[in-house]
């Protein structure tokens, strides 16, 4: 157990390092990119550019720049954003609860509904419910999430805002601590929008898994034991199918928390990590980019390690004896 944890920690640091170096190289070592010019604004004079270059240490050699940035990020923790000229780490810290609110809420919804739909489709195989549910799931994964968000906004903010959806507040975010009810209302439509894609995907995965597991010998043994169909479904078929489900879920959840929900955040005006990442990438705001990448790498590797742990808990065969 100890060896496992140590190995994972080392892996975590290695991945964070590798990703940060890669991103750094992409943004700094690609010929033709000049953040100084970007920051200097419209029609800058050569002097302005040179000053900016010096001020942000952009005239130092690559490895030095990287080392300096890492030092500011972790040790002195006073990394400054090129764009807003404020400290980066507090920016990320204030963006995190927004993303967490969005992703956790959506995750609860999608896990619940995908299990219901997936199990229903598998149990009702042969009736028309099965193909109906699966077509709905397919439509769910075929919709671009940002377009769905726009359509949702169109309906809730405009077309039906006077009647059915009068309670929907304008796009934006209210912290939970400030006003729980408003927090909830602001997030409800984003939750539904984000989860549609994942419900479609996971319902299909679960259904396929359930059908495959149905044919396993141990399910036949369970029936031969005279156990009720419901118990066979829940305790035998579903239990083993959940192993794959949980592994996939862990990774997807990790990616979303790391900033993968940026499209939803942008469409609904939620100032989360995803939106921060997007703005920093397009604004060539290196310090913010690097910090969000390290943050993302951290969460993704954490999620992957958590998935391994849960997998071992669910499937005794992979446990180290």
């Amino acid at each position, binding site marked *: 157990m100890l060896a496992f944890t140590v190995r994972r920690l080392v892996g975590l640091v290695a991945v964070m390092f590798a990703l940060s170096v890669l991103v750094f190289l992409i943004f700094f070592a690609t010929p033709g990119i000049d953040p100084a010019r970007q920051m200097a604004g419209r029609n800058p004079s050569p002097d302005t550019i040179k000053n900016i270059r010096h001020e942000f240490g952009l005239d130092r050699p690559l490895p030095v720049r990287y080392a300096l940035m890492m030092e500011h990020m972790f040790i002195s923790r006073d990394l400054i954003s090129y764009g807003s000229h404020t400290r980066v780490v507090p920016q990320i810290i204030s963006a995190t609860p927004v993303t967490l609110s969005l992703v956790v809420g959506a995750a609860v919804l999608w896990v619940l509904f995908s299990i219901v739909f997936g199990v229903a489709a598998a149990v009702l195989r042969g009736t028309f419910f099965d193909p109906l549910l699966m077509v709905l799931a397919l439509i769910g994964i075929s919709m671009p999430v940002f377009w769905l968000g726009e359509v949702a906004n169109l309906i809730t903010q405009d077309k039906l805002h006077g009647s059915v959806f009068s309670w929907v507040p304008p796009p934006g975010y209210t912290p939970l601590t400030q006003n729980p009810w408003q927090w909830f209302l602001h997030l409800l439509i984003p939750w539904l929008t984000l989860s549609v894609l994942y419900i479609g995907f996971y319902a299909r995965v679960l259904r396929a898994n359930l059908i495959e597991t149905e044919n396993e010998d141990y399910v036949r043994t369970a029936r031969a034991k005279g*156990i009720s169909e419901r118990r066979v479904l829940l*305790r035998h078929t579903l239990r*083993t199918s959940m192993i794959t489900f949980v592994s996939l879920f862990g990774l997807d959840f990790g990616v979303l928390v790391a900033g993968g929900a940026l499209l939803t955040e942008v469409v609904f005006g939620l100032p989360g990590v995803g939106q921060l990442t997007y703005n920093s990438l397009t604004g060539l705001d290196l310090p913010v980019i690097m910090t969000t990448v390290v943050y993302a790498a951290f969460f993704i590797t954490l999620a992957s390690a958590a998935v391994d742990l849960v997998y071992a808990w669910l499937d005794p065969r992979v446990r180290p004896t």
Partner: protein
Amino acid sequence: MAEPLLEVEDLKVSFRTEDGIVHAVDGVSFTVAEGEVVGIVGESGSGKSVTMLSVMRLITDPNVSYEGEIRYKGRSLMALSREAMREVRGEEIAMIFQDPMTSLNPVYKIGWQIEEQLREHTKVSKGEARRRSVELLRQVGIPNAAERIDDYPHQFSGGMRQRVMIALALSCNPDLLIADEPTTALDVTIQAQILELIKNLKTEFRSAVVLITHDLGVVADIADRILVMYAGRIVEEGDKEQIFYDPQHPYTWGLLGSIARLDRPKPRRLTAIAGQPPSLINRPRGCNFRPRCPQAFERCRREEPQLTQKVGDGHLDACHLPVEDKRARRGETIDPALAESA
């Protein structure tokens, strides 16, 4: 004669497939008496497993259809509701399967899996269920049963896993145990142990056993009666002596000829039965075995032989050959070396 425990009457099981209707079982009838051991022998595709899976109503393929009757202790099993059939399964009729590695749920401890069955059919407390499980494991020969009960299936060897399956099957004292190729996936030495175990337990638990196998050698020691199946039908039926010492059907001869035996003086070739089983969608005219039968003659092509009693009490076969010819010629197949030297 006492009422038979299990009665199968003209059972027909067919499957709709994209290539046509497959007649997996085509008119099979037999009985199993209380405490009797019946061996069903045949190659893959002969319908032996499908027959017994139909008895248990474990076939989940939605494209299956049944004809005929299956009666257990006088009650028709086909007519039972799903609930009632559930109660029969595990408690009155139990089944163990071929591959113990995949037949046990890998994520639950074996103690849990035995207790699950006990608590489904009997009203026992958790403690009592656990005690009973340990006792069962001991009875089937698992060492350190009290500790091993908390292990997972993957922590057992193949032979041990099959013992666990047997313990599971016998936990509710069923009157009929169906064993579907219980030793096929195991080493030869373990095979003997498992068969010995089944034999002993049959006496101890007083249950009847239906043993399905493709190897006549497996049933040589343990079976009271033997049914030989081919292409979904029974081609020969008799008690142990009749089948081994006076076999009447060329297919049975082929099966006997393919058993390796230690008691023959010279090493000899094993006979293989040439050819493939027939298509179960389009059956050939006449005798189903004719294309592969070394003894086939004109009548075999025209007329399908019926399973009738020709030589002894309870000894039935489905072959047109006259009995004397059979007895004269079967040596060629069963024991070519002896026949040559004769």
